[in-house]
């Protein structure tokens, strides 16, 4: 089980995780504060954070869609079936 860091000062890897969580609106209040404090003095993480936000915007703009899992399952089954028939 992971130990929770209760300090307000976190290292870059924890800040990166908080930053990624924040992109999905899943960073808690305390995590956001820790991220802000870290960003205030870490230039590398500031650059990373801005790229991360840019990526989120680009993904939203792209309006990507996935096909349903049900459909994928259906396709897998029909491909496997046909594939087997051709090789038997």
């Amino acid at each position: 089980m992971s130990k929770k860091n209760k300090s307000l000062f976190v290292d870059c890897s924890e800040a990166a995780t908080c930053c990624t969580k924040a992109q999905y609106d899943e960073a808690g209040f305390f995590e956001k504060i820790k991220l802000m404090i870290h960003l205030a003095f870490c230039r590398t993480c500031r650059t990373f954070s801005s790229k991360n936000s840019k990526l989120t915007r680009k993904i939203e703009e792209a309006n990507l869609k996935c096909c349903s899992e049900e459909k994928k399952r259906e396709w897998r089954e029909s491909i496997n079936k046909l594939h087997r028939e051709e090789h038997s």
Partner: protein
Amino acid sequence: MPSNQLDPNKWVDRYSDYLFNYTIVRVNDREVANDLISETFLAGLKSAKNFKGEASERTWLISILKRKIIDHYRRNNSKKGQAEVKINYTGEDSEGEWLEEQVADQFDRTAEDEMENNELGLAILDCLDSINEKQAAIFKRKTIDGVDTEAICNEFDITPSNLWVIIHRARTALAACMEKNWF
């Protein structure tokens, strides 16, 4: 020397989302897109012996899909016997209303925006193809499907901390891949 080989058992996992995004903007209907992709996979399997290995598997499937999309429009057009004429402005009172309707809506997305977004979408999926398969799968479930963290953790049998590390790695790889053309 041909180096690419077909692996039909992986087609759905590797290419279905890419093919779906490629198709949906061209036919604008989920059901039709699903049918065309299904036809593409089956046609690909039937003509697998004609694959020379010069193009990548995905390029080859896309070329089949393109033909399927053209056939779809041909079929639809051949059904059209009669043109539909819509007359909206019949009375004298409504004269001039069409002018208002023709005014450009600045918030409306233009065809160019749509095209660029589609290209962007395909570029993202392209980059996702080049990263670790598990990372890409988890990233797609979280970011594109919008599935709950807990549900993904159960699906892949990982802890939430693992999930965030994986997503963080996927995003870093994705940003690096896209940096050249899109950032």
